[in-house]
């Protein structure tokens, strides 16, 4: 399998090749998805060194355990980003990183009620996605943003918004389902059939 072949290879086939210890397949996955993964890690951690560490760990894990990715359950991009998000959130919640983050936030004097909608919209890459996100009910958009981009648990979000925990977890779920439906109606694919 040469490099030219890999560029036309599906994500699922690349992961199969990784399972056969083909480093060039991992390199191709990196070429396709490392940019999005790095952007997410950097956004969450606001620390390039930690973001690099997370990426290194996630790609090393894909190399060591490619069988964890199941192409019938989702795209490789979503899988990689979920791995990056999980690792980043762990770091955010770790003691040292939390201290650093709090110090940074104190320096920047971020107001508690900053513009969440704008935050989310600025971060979304697709115009269609921006439109769909903007159309989400504010209360659902807020909880998703605080949980996903803030790395907060739903219990923490409940305290931050002075909202019952049950309401927050319901809004996260309903918001994600609404996003999925609206994105599909807008023609933004959220299916993951691999060739």
């Amino acid at each position: 399998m040469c490099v030219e072949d890999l560029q036309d290879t599906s994500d699922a086939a690349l992961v199969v090749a990784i399972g056969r210890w083909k480093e060039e397949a991992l390199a191709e996955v990196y070429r396709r998805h490392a940019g999005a993964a790095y952007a997410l890690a950097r956004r969450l951690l606001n620390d390039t060194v930690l973001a690099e560490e997370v990426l290194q760990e996630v790609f090393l894990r894909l190399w060591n355990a490619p069988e964890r990715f199941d192409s019938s359950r989702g795209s490789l991009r979503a899988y990689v980003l979920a791995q990056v998000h999980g690792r980043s959130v762990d770091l955010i919640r770790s003691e040292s990183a939390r201290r650093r983050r709090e110090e940074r936030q104190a320096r920047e004097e971020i107001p508690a009620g900053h513009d969440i909608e704008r935050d989310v919209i600025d971060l979304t890459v697709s115009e269609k996605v921006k439109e769909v996100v903007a159309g989400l009910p504010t209360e659902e958009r807020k909880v998703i943003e605080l949980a996903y981009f803030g790395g907060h648990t739903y219990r923490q979000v409940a305290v931050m918004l002075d909202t019952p925990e049950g309401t927050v977890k319901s809004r996260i779920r309903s918001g994600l389902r609404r996003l999925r439906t609206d994105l599909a109606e807008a023609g933004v694919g959220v299916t993951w059939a691999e060739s």
Partner: protein
Amino acid sequence: MGRELSHEEATDLLGAYALDALDPVEHQAVDAHVRGCPPCLAEVAEHREVAGLLSPGWSKPPPGLWDRISASLEEVPPPLDLAPVIAMKPSAPKAPPPSPVSAVAGRRFGVGIAAMVAAAAVAVIGFLGVRAIDDRPGAGNDDRSYAIELQRSVDAAVAAPDARKVELVSTDRSRTAEVVVLPDGTGYVVRTNLAPLSKERTYQMWAVVGSTPISVGVLGPEPKVVPFKMHGNVSALAITEEVAGGVVSSRQTPVVSANLQSA
């Protein structure tokens, strides 16, 4: 939480679960449900697909990052092949072990511990008359079925002829943790005399593969019987004290450790 969730309870939490917005205990409970529930598994996949679309675009990774990843691949060992150390009497039937703790499995931590662990002597122990009950904080009547299943798995593992038994010890040998590992990498912390920690702290277990320590499980503040899973050619095991929930990278000195290669 700490108990098995009903389908309704689990589904209520699927959105937060997909966004990593649960605390470790809830995450573990939902994880256990999702693994055995295809509809929930599908819903989580959908949520994560949506979340992926919200991610903040694309940033060019630093130039040397791929080179570092590529260089680290050369250290990847072949699959785990733990040779048996003690042939135990094959009296107890093998039972399928419960799913291992995997809250932060596979995470790296800082260098330095590997060398320290390598200096520790491995201790092979007898495990005669092992008494092991699940007395983790929060484990009550609702956890009985889990505790029973876990205990059966531990008993089977201890009795398995191809199991490897290792004792992790502190440098002053006052603290120990007894571990049994099966050839497929499934392992159990069988018993420890580690000092109880506050709820804000936890013990975390690491397997050293090559020169890279990999987290194999967060053990809780008062670990007794805990399943774990490790992969690769593990040269050493170590347990550190960390902040509750565990860490990706640790700079802590191991509380106890064992070198598997010297056995």
